[in-house]
């Protein structure tokens, strides 16, 4: 790694860390961001080293030197003190500085450290507090008044911490220790082919991509219209890593058992600007007869989704029916299933819509940027052409992903969704090589119990484990060491098992 690799560049995604508070932003010269009730530009961090500490001054980020805390010098003082809180009264008059005065000082550009000194000076009770109490007080004030941010490169660890503190429900309450278990128990490593089904804002897919480091393949299954690529943007992966990712729609999972191969329609040339909705990006290789029997599962799903999706409208799959009578029975069961899926999807879409509304500021800025870029290109022909190209690319990706899955050479299956995992796992487990790991996460133990019972019946797996991890943090300070007061009650459950060669009996 060269030294420039560790410098913040314009366009990078960076994480700003203040205490336990983490946020992702994209660096853009001249653009203001909004964080901690402040508006400021990130220009000051460009060209600086990752891991540097900055303070917000007059709407700009200014690099400051990190101080080594000499907390250790207080070793035995605090505990032997004569002071206690018997004379302390809880009243507003303890602080002589008025709220308005503090605000004015801030407006005048006082540094956070200086402000805290002022607060101490004007506190009637500070001197009568014990040393430990003073330290705690200062720490609290620092958290409130010091606007210092460490600039960090995004990683699974930091993104998981960020989502966990912002809104764990959006990542299915997947706590960092559960995610670590999943990656370890799944034996995720460079060179593997991994299938990921998740609805944790791309966190699991990103974590797997990070662990593969550009070696291997990740097939990420998405629900609904299009893959949630913008979530992976936070990781700021290199092209080498992103090239190992293949997106595949969940709606085409049941159809995987049909051997028919999807093929990108070459007739749709890149030059065709007016690409109509009816044009097919994907065609099916038809070997023998040209009977237009469409695989019901796919067709129904497409019909059910009344929102027009770029690829989906174009991806049409046809296949020959092997046997009239056989296909009839199959048709019934599959269409039933498809209906169920369709309903689920509508619900899901509404959830996503609300999600988008309360989208994070970093996503908003990202969206704005894309919007701006988009507007610049007023050449409509170019626009449709690009869209057509994107469609074909997406279609190609689906075809590639399908081929990889159907090779049945997958090394791991990881499921962590808001859906009931059993049908997903049952539909995909047979594409995993023997003697490999499957990992299913759920925030509900009952879902995994059900999954376990079905897998037992499905056969072809051994060494099942249904586990839960317990995570307790400790405050470690001289003479003040104890578990942290608040702790997380659950971080979800993980079911793991090892695939084996299916025996006939």
């Amino acid at each position, binding site marked *: 790694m060269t030294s420039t690799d560790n410098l913040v560049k314009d366009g990078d995604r960076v994480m700003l860390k203040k205490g336990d508070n983490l946020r992702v932003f994209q660096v853009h010269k001249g653009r203001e961001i909004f964080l901690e009730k402040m508006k400021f530009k990130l220009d000051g961090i460009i060209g600086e080293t990752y891991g540097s500490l900055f303070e917000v001054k007059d709407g700009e980020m200014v690099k400051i030197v990190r101080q080594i805390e000499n907390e250790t010098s207080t070793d035995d003082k605090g505990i032997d003190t004569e002071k206690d809180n018997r004379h302390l009264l809880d009243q507003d008059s303890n602080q002589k500085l008025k709220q308005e005065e503090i605000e004015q000082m801030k407006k005048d550009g006082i540094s956070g450290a200086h402000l805290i000194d002022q607060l101490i000076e004007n506190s009637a009770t500070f001197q009568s507090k014990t040393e430990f109490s003073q330290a705690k007080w200062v720490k609290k004030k620092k958290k409130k008044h010091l606007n210092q941010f460490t600039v960090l490169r995004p990683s699974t660890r930091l993104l998981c911490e960020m989502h966990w503190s912002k809104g764990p429900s959006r990542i299915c309450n997947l706590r960092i220790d559960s995610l670590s278990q999943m990656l370890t128990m799944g034996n995720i490593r460079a060179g593997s082919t991994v299938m990921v089904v998740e609805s944790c804002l791309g966190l699991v897919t990103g974590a797997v991509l*990070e662990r593969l480091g550009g070696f291997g393949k990740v097939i990420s299954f998405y629900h609904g219209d299009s893959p949630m690529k913008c979530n992976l943007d936070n990781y700021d992966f290199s092209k080498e890593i992103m090239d190992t990712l293949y997106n595949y729609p969940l709606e085409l999972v049941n159809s995987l058992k049909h051997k028919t191969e999807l093929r990108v329609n070459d007739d749709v040339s890149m030059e065709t600007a007016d690409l109509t909705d009816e044009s097919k990006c994907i065609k099916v290789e038809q070997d023998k007869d040209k009977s237009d029997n469409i695989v019901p599962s796919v067709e129904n799903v497409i019909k059910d989704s009344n929102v027009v999706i770029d690829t989906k409208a174009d991806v049409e799959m046809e296949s020959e029916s092997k046997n009239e009578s056989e296909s009839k029975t199959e048709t019934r069961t599959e269409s039933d299933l498809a209906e169920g899926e369709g309903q689920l999807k509508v619900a899901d879409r509404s959830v996503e819509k609300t999600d988008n509304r309360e989208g994070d500021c970093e996503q908003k800025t990202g969206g704005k940027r894309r919007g701006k870029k988009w507007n610049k290109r007023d050449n409509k022909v170019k626009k449709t052409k690009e869209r057509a190209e994107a469609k074909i690319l997406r279609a190609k990706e689906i075809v590639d992903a399908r081929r990889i899955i159907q090779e049945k050479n997958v090394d791991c299956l990881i499921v962590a969704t808001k859906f009931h995992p059993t049908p997903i796992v049952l539909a995909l487990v047979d594409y995993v090589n023997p003697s490999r790991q499957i990992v299913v996460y759920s925030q509900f133990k009952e879902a995994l119990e059900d999954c376990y019972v079905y897998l037992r019946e499905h056969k072809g797996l051994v060494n099942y484990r249904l586990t839960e991890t317990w995570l307790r943090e400790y405050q470690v300070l001289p003479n003040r060491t104890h578990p942290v007061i608040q702790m997380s009650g659950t971080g979800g459950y993980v079911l793991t098992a090892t695939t084996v060669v299916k025996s006939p009996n």
Partner: protein
Amino acid sequence: MSFAKYKSNIENGDTVMLYLGFDNMHTLVIKDGDTFQTRYGALRHSHLIGKQYGSRVYCKKGYLYVLHPTPELWTVNLPHRTQILYSTDISFITMQLDLRPGSIVVESGTGSGSLSHSIIRTIAPTGHLHTFEFHDQRAKVAAEEFDIHGISEYVTVTHRDVCQDGFQLDHIADAVFLDLPKPWEVIDSAKGALKHQGGRICSFSPCIEQVQRTCNTLTSNGFVELKTFECLLRNHDVRTVNLPLPDLGPSDLVLHDGSVTINSSTDNGKQNDITEETDTGTESEKTDKDFIDANCLKTESEEQIVDTSDKSKRKIDSNDLRDSNSDTKRPRFDKLKLQNTRHDFDLIGCKDDKSFFFKTSAPTLQMPGHTGFLTFATLYHSN
């Protein structure tokens, strides 16, 4: 050779895992001509060569599965030379140290190599592990193991007491892991081993006094964002439980004069035992009862699938309601709620007149309550 990457068939010299049942596994190195004794009878190594990993292999008195080695299976089967780290702590360490392909990691001590195998798995093929062990023979055995497992190119084993002589590494590492009785003695040296741009450190200590001292030293050496955790694993056994229903007597037993006669002919006692069927184990242990049980559950969960689609419908409804007049919201919502209450099946199991059956997964009665405290910290580049 089998640890470096997945392969499909067993070859001579491979390390394989034999799975005989839940918590009953062995590891062995395939050596043509050798025989291995299992609980199900003798197993000739030559019989395994060429077989696909994951195959079922028959012995005289039963069958077993031959599995591909993974660091996790190795951890539960390796020959102990020291106390070892288990997968729960290992996975948390791997995540907290930001390990990935290409990471340069320093570890001390090597011990039995449990963590080492896991680190190498994650950082290969472009990363490297520098592991230090003060016990000469342990260092040698670990190096031999890495060689047999085909991963020696990713690791350098050094026999040295790092507390006395330090790591002697010049700013090359992304992460340092310490499992030492006195970790504070090497923190200065660990700082020198971490890259100029900074990195992560982890110290594993069983006792809080060690943690206390380590944290002091980390802070005074400029490490920041110190976090100390305990991470424990709870195993859940999926099983069917049968809780007997108590006999509360008939409701018409109160006589006219207010006295109560007790009918002594009730046949409880026999039924009043909780029975449990553990569902964990290999397929060979599976009984017909289990099978019926699973079928029973199938119908239940089919209902559940219907139920979820109902729910999603309802969700849309309530979303619609939110948009429309708020006055109409309450009564219609209550109506929906009423529909939600189903009486045609028990929510979590089924009852007959004698007992209540349900599927559950209960934590094991005994579990390891403490392994050690994991302290993590970051060192940012010095400027």
